[in-house]
């Protein structure tokens, strides 16, 4: 297939049509910050961290959901984008109750990493301090809404990879929460297979195994993509 010529941050690249801007950037080690993107499941464009400027477009577009077109001129690191990435990060921290000091994912958390990458030293917006539930009813796992950033990676992994669709989202606006079945305790779910893929997919310490304590969480989100690749070979 004929490759397309595109320009990213003033450099020229050849890329296959049908690929997203994000895929092309990742191939060439151009850093694009993401939270809701997880290789192996469908993109939803919800976190808005991967927004890029495209010449000729008035709107910022999410790199994960926008396919490349011929002669596209893309800017990924303008001052405007950097500024918005920082605000997005701050809003993530202010939305729920992220207490790194007591979190299992301290040190391996993608949200923490994001904060370092955008150089966020403090949060300028008032914290919302919502009251959130912690579901410990599952024999092995815990779901802590305090640490959830609503990236819905667990929802998509459970639905698209495991096929169980235990997780979904309830309510709307800032009151959205991840739910299991009819918002019933996870331990009583009739759909969950306890496969644990959602734990691997979760970028923060919202989903974790009971056996560990602060700072011990090891995550391997890449496993999802590997799994999907292996499945293709079996077929």
């Amino acid at each position, binding site marked *: 297939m004929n490759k397309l010529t595109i320009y990213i941050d003033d450099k020229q690249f050849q890329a296959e049509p049908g690929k997203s801007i994000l895929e092309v950037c990742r191939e060439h080690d151009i850093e694009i910050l993401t939270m809701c993107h997880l290789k192996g499941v469908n993109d939803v464009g919800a976190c808005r961290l991967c927004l890029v400027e495209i010449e000729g477009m008035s709107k910022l577009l999410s790199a994960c959901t926008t396919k490349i077109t011929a002669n596209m001129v893309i800017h990924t690191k303008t001052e405007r984008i950097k500024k918005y990435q920082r605000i997005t990060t701050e809003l993530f921290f202010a939305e729920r109750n992220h207490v790194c000091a007591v979190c299992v994912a301290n040190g391996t958390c993608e949200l923490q990493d994001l904060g370092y990458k955008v150089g966020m030293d403090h949060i300028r917006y008032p914290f919302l301090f919502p009251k959130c539930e912690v579901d410990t009813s599952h024999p092995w796992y815990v779901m802590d809404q305090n640490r959830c950033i609503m990236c819905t990676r667990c929802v998509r992994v459970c639905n698209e990879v495991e096929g169980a669709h235990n997780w979904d989202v309830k309510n709307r606006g800032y009151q959205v929460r991840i*739910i299991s079945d009819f918002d019933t305790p996870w331990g009583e779910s009739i759909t969950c297979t306890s496969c644990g893929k959602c734990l691997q997919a979760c970028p923060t310490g919202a989903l974790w195994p009971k056996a560990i304590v602060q700072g011990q969480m090891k995550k391997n989100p890449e496993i999802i993509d590997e799994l999907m690749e292996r499945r293709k070979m079996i077929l």
Partner: protein
Amino acid sequence: MKSGSSLLDAELHKTDPRVKLIAAKLKKENFKPDALIEVLHTAQNVYGHLPLNVLAYISKALSLPPSRVYSTVTFYHFFSLKSKGEHTCLVCTGTACYVKGAQVILNEIESKIGLRPGQVSADNQLGIQVARCIGACGLAPAVVLDDEVQGKVTLGEIINKIIDKMAAK
């Protein structure tokens, strides 16, 4: 939280005429999963709200995961998981009504009747709700008492009407 597994085991009363209405709707829609919202409308109409066992029934009938059904129900303001009360008083808070003092009406209801939007009286007689514009802007401020639109309401009059509703069981 209610127990999840026990819920799905709960069979709806087959003789309940309301279940039959839902079953008829399901059949009419050919049990297509994309008819979920249409079926929920029917269920909400016949039950007044959407009890969890009804949702479990619908989820099974349409072969949809429980969380998919629950998430759809909680997304739309029209659907309610809880009973809204025998009588309902819905105060329009659309822009025209807002400009003409919908908030004052809500304050008055709270001080005289002791209920805020979304609340139902202890005896389940009256539920107070708000709507984002019922499209009767020419009659602002408007209140809907049991499906009957009261236009250009005044404070004393509307409170009396509500109290009458509560008294007439």
